[in-house]
């Protein structure tokens, strides 16, 4: 994973599914097989050669070279330009020597050269090594050598050269493509591994940060004073971070806490719990069922707004430091959200009076919201026991319950 780009390290990284390696083996095998073919072909046509010893010496050198370099041409790691150039030079020499060793009539008649299709092995080596451009170059060199050997451009000669060029270029192109896909794949795998590692680290870090924040909150609260203020801050941050993580890791879609899908469709079911969770904090406790509480997004949104208004009411009437509890209940026919505070409470008689006089502004707005949803909002209070607002929203569709069950 060093990413230095060196061919060896890359091959090791993606070694198990390398496309390139089999091609090198194929080139190596092709060189040996074509060398054997060249020897056999020569043995058959030896009778019309004028310098048979010279031909045999050349073929001996070619055989020794080809067999000696099997390991070199076995993988890209061992092969270099020098080896390729040497191979090409030997082939070109063989082609040109054919003119000297073979009977003149045969040379003019377009007889095959000494290395014959072993020349293709050299061109393929270039193709696999460097792609289509080096392959085209090697093919052209072999082609020119052929023309020089025959001293003219015959049609069969041209045919062979074109075939050689085509094969070299095509294979070179395929090799380039394979190499690129391999690189892309390797990069993708690296990114994937890095992402997984980052996620794991993030989880650990988040967990650690959350624990520390909670601990600061706990110890700070015990110490009181300025430490207490720091503790409160830590507590708030813990809740905020936890909500953020829950949102980030939560399912995406209509049930997702972000509600982006639900925002587009007011009737899409949305989990009320996800909407209310952010309200929880050091002064607000949220008690909810363990399974999604699904309501049409618009209803859920209105309900959340009503709960928010109720909390504002608590802060306004009881004070900033007031404690509040929210309870979400998922009944078959209705969803009930209760908001209770630990304030001094109000005498019910006074509550009714205040309401008649229209002095319960916020409460009125809560009632209004619930009425629009076809639900009710009730306010209970007793002196010394705080005030409780109970919001009840009927389930709009009978089928809703079935859908709810499916998600359990």
């Amino acid at each position, binding site marked *: 994973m060093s990413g230095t780009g060196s061919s060896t390290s890359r091959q090791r990284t993606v070694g198990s599914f390398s496309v390139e390696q089999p091609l090198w083996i194929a080139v190596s095998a092709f060189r040996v097989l074509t060398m054997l073919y060249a020897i056999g072909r020569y043995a058959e046509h030896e009778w019309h050669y004028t310098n048979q010893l010279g031909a045999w010496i050349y073929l001996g050198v070619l055989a020794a070279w080809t067999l000696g370099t099997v390991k070199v041409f076995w993988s890209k790691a061992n092969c270099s330009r020098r080896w390729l150039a040497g191979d090409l030079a030997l082939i070109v020499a063989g082609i040109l020597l054919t003119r000297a060793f073979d009977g003149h009539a045969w040379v003019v008649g377009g007889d095959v050269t000494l290395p014959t299709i072993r020349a293709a092995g050299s061109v393929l080596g270039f193709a696999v090594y460097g792609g289509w451009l080096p392959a085209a170059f090697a093919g052209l060199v072999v082609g020119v050598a052929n023309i020089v050997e025959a001293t003219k451009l015959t049609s069969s000669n041209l045919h062979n050269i074109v075939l050689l060029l085509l094969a070299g270029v095509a294979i070179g192109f395929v090799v380039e493509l394979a190499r690129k896909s391999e690189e892309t794949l390797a990069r993708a795998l690296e990114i994937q591994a890095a992402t997984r590692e980052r996620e794991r680290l993030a989880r650990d870090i988040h967990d650690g940060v959350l624990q520390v924040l909670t601990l600061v909150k*706990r110890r700070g609260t015990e110490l009181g004073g300025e430490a207490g203020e720091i503790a409160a801050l830590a507590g708030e941050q813990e809740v905020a971070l936890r909500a953020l993580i829950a949102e980030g890791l939560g399912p995406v879609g209509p049930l997702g806490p972000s509600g982006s899908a639900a925002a587009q469709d007011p009737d899409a079911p949305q989990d009320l719990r996800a909407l209310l969770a952010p309200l929880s904090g050091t002064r607000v*406790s*949220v008690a*909810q069922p*363990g399974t999604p509480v699904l309501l049409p997004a618009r209803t859920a949104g209105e309900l959340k707004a009503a709960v928010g208004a109720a909390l504002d009411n608590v802060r306004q009437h009881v004070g900033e430091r007031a404690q509040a509890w929210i309870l979400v*209940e998922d009944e078959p026919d209705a969803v009930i959200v209760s908001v209770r505070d630990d304030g001094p409470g109000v005498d019910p008689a006074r509550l009714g009076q205040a309401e008649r006089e229209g002095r319960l502004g916020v409460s009125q707005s809560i009632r209004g919201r619930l009425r629009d949803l076809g639900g009710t909002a009730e306010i209970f209070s007793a002196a010394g026991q705080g005030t409780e607002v109970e919001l009840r929203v009927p389930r709009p569709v009978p089928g809703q319950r079935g859908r709810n069950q499916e998600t359990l």
Partner: protein
Amino acid sequence: MTKEETGMKDEKAGAGAVPAPIRVMVVDDHPMWREAVARDLADAGFDVVATAGDAREAVQRGRAVQPGVVVLDLNLPDQPGVEVCRQLMAAEPAPRVLVLSASGEHGDVLEAVKSGATGYLVKSASREELLDAVRRTAHGDAVFTPGLAGLVLGEFRRLAAEPVPAGQAESNAPRLTERETEVLRLVAKGLPYKAIADRLVLSPRTVQNHVQNTLGKLQLHNRVELVRYAIEAGLDEEG
């Protein structure tokens, strides 16, 4: 809680003149937290007999030292804390498990409670709350947060809404009595037991019993379901 279980508790609470210190094991993967909790408990006179940082350690040490109370974090590196709870509850005598976990692990908390944990406290609770919770857990009392009460209420509703299994005339899902529902709702709304008792004209002990009963029903149902599952899966034929 059944009577038999309450009996077991009394022996541990030691009604005698000099009550033996409560033996506690603290399980938390965070060394800092583990030590802070253990120190708080030790300072308050509890006997912290073991601490553990992962599930394997927790089960091993739990079996070896047989603590009276296990303070258990559900977020452990190797196995879910719920699994630890389950395995510890299989021991004889089973410890009382108080789940001390970060908030926002609803499903896990419910599972832990169903498999035998009798208390749940969020980590943001104060030291006094923690000490009180461990004492109450050791004494056999259920320790509820408003959040847990909400979860338990929701779980009973979910069970009631489940379709009746084929071949049965009626659902065997546990149900809450009206009184129990009433009590749980008030707990979920953050009222202390004393205030609930005042409001419902009951003794605080009765309120505690009602809360306890709701847990007992869930745990019993959970065991029945496990046995039913084992029979259906043919696990009973192995022996």
